[in-house]
């Protein structure tokens, strides 16, 4: 897991700011107190399981590398109800997919967090957290 260089990609930076602004507004079910919403980290790994369930989707990602980062990450995501209206389906993430994810990490240091977005094997970016105005950034360049 490494911190994102926010200047690497200005579009990503914008999306992150938007996500930061809106994230606390998006969760019906609970607050975001256990996630570090001010911090976004990037992880690259292999999808182990994608659970299309309420009140939140859950994604388990296997990350390889040195001992500090390697392991299984548990990522909470928006509900299937929300994501289903935003172009996701239960097939969006499949076991074995190699993906890169932007994540608001857990504050307590465990391997997990809230999914901001995911870059699919074909390069398409799917946003998990809502963005302003209901625009689906996965459909914009």
């Amino acid at each position, binding site marked *: 897991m490494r911190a994102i260089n926010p200047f690497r990609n200005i579009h990503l930076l914008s999306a992150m700011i938007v996500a930061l602004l809106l994230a*606390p*507004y*998006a*969760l*019906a*079910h*609970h*607050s975001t*107190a*256990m996630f570090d919403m001010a911090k976004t980290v990037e992880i690259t790994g292999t999808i182990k*399981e994608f*659970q299309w*369930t*309420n*009140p*939140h989707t*859950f994604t*388990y990602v296997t990350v390889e590398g040195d001992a500090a980062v390697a392991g299984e990450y*548990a990522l*909470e995501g928006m*509900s*299937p*109800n*929300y994501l*289903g*209206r935003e172009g996701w389906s239960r097939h969006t993430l499949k076991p074995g997919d190699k993906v890169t994810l932007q994540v608001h990490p*857990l504050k307590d240091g*465990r*391997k*997990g967090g809230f999914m901001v977005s995911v870059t699919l094997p074909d390069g398409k970016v799917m946003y998990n957290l*809502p963005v*302003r*105005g*209901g625009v689906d950034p996965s459909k914009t360049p």
Partner: protein
Amino acid sequence: MQTAFKFAVAAGLVVVGAAMAADAPKSRAPTAADYAALAKLPDWSGVWEPDWRGEHRAIEARAGGAPGGARVGGPPAGDARGGSAPAGGARFGGRGGGPQLTPEFQAKMAANPPARGGAGSGANCVPPGLPGIMTQPYPIEFLITPGKIGILIEAYMQFRHVFTDGRPHPADPDPTYMGHSIGHWEGDTLVVDSVGFNDSIKIGGRYPHSDQMHIVERIRRVDKDWMQIQTTTIDPEVLAEPITTTNWYKHLDDEIREYICLENNHDSVDENGQPGFSTENQK
């Protein structure tokens, strides 16, 4: 205060009415005329999503409307851990100072102040009840039938019944999360009056209520895309003035989806408001 007076009168009528209606059946077979009458009501088909994205606020701002009015969004206080916003995220009358409390209630609260920003139990899958349940970031749907309107609420998979057959409230309703709701039409506006709330329901997400609390909703489809709900909380023992908030709902050509909160819940909140999060695979 005129509104309070009207409700005092209404409450009196309700008591009398309830006594008279004690033996009335809880339902009756609808007639063809009942169904024909429904056709004259406004079209509320489809589902309606609370404007948590702020789209209507943006429309108002472009039109030069007053920003900073009531809004939907923000962590719904009825269920959000650590959320301190009033239910539905609506502000109180734009004054920013919280609700106007009666002197008696204010003294009571000064002696025993409620916790500010106390965590709700939504993380434990307990729904917020009225009015917070009406402004979750999930759509609602109205099922209009003879004598009764059902409100389906996707969040927490909740439902409400609004009786429109002229029955009164029960004289002594059991306290519940949704209360007991009766409604009538004023032109294109459905006016819903609800009473009988349990102690989980807090005024402004913070203050306890008395058994005199009424929540009055004025529901109207404004145009093709938008529905407006004005929600007024009246409690003569707690509030010196009623609180009114306005929330907007966008039309979606969609259906209410399943939402079983306990299907795969990793979140929790303890009695001290501390959040918990399980990384274990529960499936």
